[in-house]
């Protein structure tokens, strides 16, 4: 096994089995790190907790819900600005955050009545919102508060509301991934099948699962589905509606994006309701095109998908290639939380020309590493649950031009002058769809060729500051070594989309497709 031992982690020998190098001739039977295990004492992990995984990743993107944390107020820190799962109902779920604000006295005397009071107050404060999720935290779990009983009392007193209880305290798993699992299973056990869909408008009905509408990704994909005449019955959970998600059992197909966070509910929907699971890639021109083709094939409407693929590719390929010409050969550390390590590993190499020199996952399982290692090129360093020192050592050794990661390791990277993009919340997303993929390429370009970043490499305490040179531009940096025909190409061009590419989608009119039943009746 080609394990990689970090110098900084020699004092924690257990860490050795959490990193491998994909060498020549290596495959998954010889190169796979351990994963999804309890963090080793002594290593400062960058993971989140199981409550975070349940609430902040999966629960909270539901848009028409009061999300109530039953615990200390600090648990619900992540809200407006720190999370970017927007919605088309004025971002209710991001603008308002709710917690019962447990204190020491509640730990001693119990906090069930505090919870009930908060739930009723919240429903009264927002009379148009009739749905709530209550999240267990470490504090309320340890004192044994019965959330289900309180939820039932509130539903008895307020008959027009519905409450979902998510019992995933922070300690309920090795990482946030434990919380993903718990909320998936809790949702299908408690809620799926409890209502029928409001309206079936198409012969082709899907659940779009594992999609969190980061900066509008879901709305971009919804546009493609609407153009194909495919109805999204529910989205689990970005921009998703609570009652739509209770009716997931009526879809014909589960289309799964982030298998790390949501494969559980797809598997259960397959076992309990016979709905098949189709794993797709929503990122990158070719993977996205193939994904839409597969969905269309399933329903027998291939020509509708092909029309979208042709139109979008013609519109955006010249812009993607403009960036590819300037990004080819740049070294990337692909260090996201989970699924993006495999969603992006091959396609940023193929379509943007960058070289992935390392992949890591904070909370992924070995299954995620199987996908990531399969998709990246030889020589890549794969790390499970890295600590901060390992991240620093890897950057010093691999010398990447950029890393794609979260805010915490991203800020660490900046300190050693490595630019980073936020792989979780994005910089200028959405990054899904053809246009989104160009926006991602533009963000990479802007980060790597930032003149300000170049200036930051000078240390004013010891370096000589050149006073005889003017300010450089991005193009001066990126085009310096480009061949003339590329630099002055008349076919390639920079991104020409709008600052806000979602607004138009929200007011768009879509074609209507005759339904089979109507055609037969007619």
């Amino acid at each position, binding site marked *: 096994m080609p394990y990689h031992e970090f110098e900084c982690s020699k004092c924690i020998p257990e860490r050795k089995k959490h990193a491998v190098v994909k060498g020549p001739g290596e*495959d*998954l*039977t010889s190169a*796979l790190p*351990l994963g*999804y295990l309890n963090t080793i004492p002594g290593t400062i992990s960058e993971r989140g907790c199981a409550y975070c995984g349940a609430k902040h990743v999966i629960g909270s993107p539901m848009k028409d819900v009061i999300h109530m944390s039953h615990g200390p107020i600090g648990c619900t820190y992540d809200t407006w600005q720190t999370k970017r799962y927007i919605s088309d109902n004025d971002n209710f779920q991001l603008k308002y955050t709710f917690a019962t604000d447990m204190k020491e006295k509640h730990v001693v005397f119990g906090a069930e009545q505090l919870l009930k009071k908060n739930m009723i107050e919240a429903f009264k404060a927002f009379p148009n919102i009739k749905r709530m999720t209550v999240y267990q935290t470490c504090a309320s779990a340890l004192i044994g508060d019965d959330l289900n009983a309180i939820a039932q009392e509130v539903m008895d007193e307020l008959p027009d509301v519905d409450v979902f209880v998510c019992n995933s305290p922070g300690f309920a798993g090795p990482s946030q991934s434990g919380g993903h699992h718990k909320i998936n*299973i809790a949702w299908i056990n408690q809620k799926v099948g409890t209502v029928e869909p409001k309206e079936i408008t198409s012969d082709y009905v899907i659940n779009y699962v594992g999609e969190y509408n980061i900066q509008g990704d879901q709305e971009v994909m919804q546009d493609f589905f609407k153009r194909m005449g495919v109805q999204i019955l529910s989205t689990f959970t970005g921009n998703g509606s609570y009652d739509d998600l209770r009716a997931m059992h009526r879809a*014909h*197909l589960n289309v799964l994006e982030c*298998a790390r966070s949501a*494969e*559980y509910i797809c*598997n*259960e929907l*397959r*076992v309990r309701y*016979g*709905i*098949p*699971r*189709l*794993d*797709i*890639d929503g990122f990158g021109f070719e*993977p996205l095109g*193939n994904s839409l*083709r*597969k*969905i269309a*094939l*399933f329903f027998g409407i291939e020509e509708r998908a092909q029309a979208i693929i042709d139109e979008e590719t013609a519109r955006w390929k010249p812009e993607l290639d403009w960036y590819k010409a300037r990004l080819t050969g740049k070294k990337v550390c692909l260090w996201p939380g989970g699924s993006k390590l*495999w969603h992006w590993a*091959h396609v940023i190499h193929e379509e943007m020309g960058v070289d992935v020199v390392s992949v890591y996952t904070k909370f992924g*399982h*070995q*299954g995620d590493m*199987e*996908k990531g290692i*399969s*998709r990246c090129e030889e020589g890549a360093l794969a790390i499970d649950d890295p600590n901060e020192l390992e991240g620093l050592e890897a950057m010093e050794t691999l010398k990447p031009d950029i890393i794609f990661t979260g805010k915490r390791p991203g800020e660490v990277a900046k300190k050693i002058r490595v630019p980073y993009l936020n792989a979780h919340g994005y910089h200028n997303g959405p990054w899904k769809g053809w246009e989104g993929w160009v926006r991602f390429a533009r963000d990479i370009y802007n980060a790597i060729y930032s003149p300000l970043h170049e200036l930051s490499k000078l240390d004013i305490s010891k370096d000589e500051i050149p006073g005889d040179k003017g300010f450089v531009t991005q193009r001066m940096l990126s085009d310096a070594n480009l061949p003339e025909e590329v630099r002055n190409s008349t076919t390639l061009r920079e991104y020409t989309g709008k600052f806000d590419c979602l607004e138009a989608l929200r007011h768009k009119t879509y074609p209507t497709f005759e339904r089979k039943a109507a055609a037969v009746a007619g």
Partner: protein
Amino acid sequence: MDDLMKSRMAQLEDYIMKNCLWQFHSRSWDRKVQNEGILSKTMQILCGEPVANETPIDKCHWVDAVVLAEEFQSRCPWLAGMDKADVKTLMNALHERMDYLTIDGSLNLELTDQHY
């Protein structure tokens, strides 16, 4: 299997491992079903044989198989020159190899968990 066949199988394996997701379901029993369903249907498509897709699960395997067969045909022009028997031998070997990589030889400790 001769060296030519081995190198051809490696090309097909490389395409699947780099571009597909269906082979990585989370449990051994799922992976067996996926590999069997998709690779046997791909073989039938490549050989011009009829493919069953009546049930939703079958149909889901079939769509992955259709796209896989198209990608194989466009990336591996030598496939067009092979007779049916050789295509079947190649695809059976590929199926065995995929089962080994993703199930029997896999180092993924979660594959045998009893629950999802």
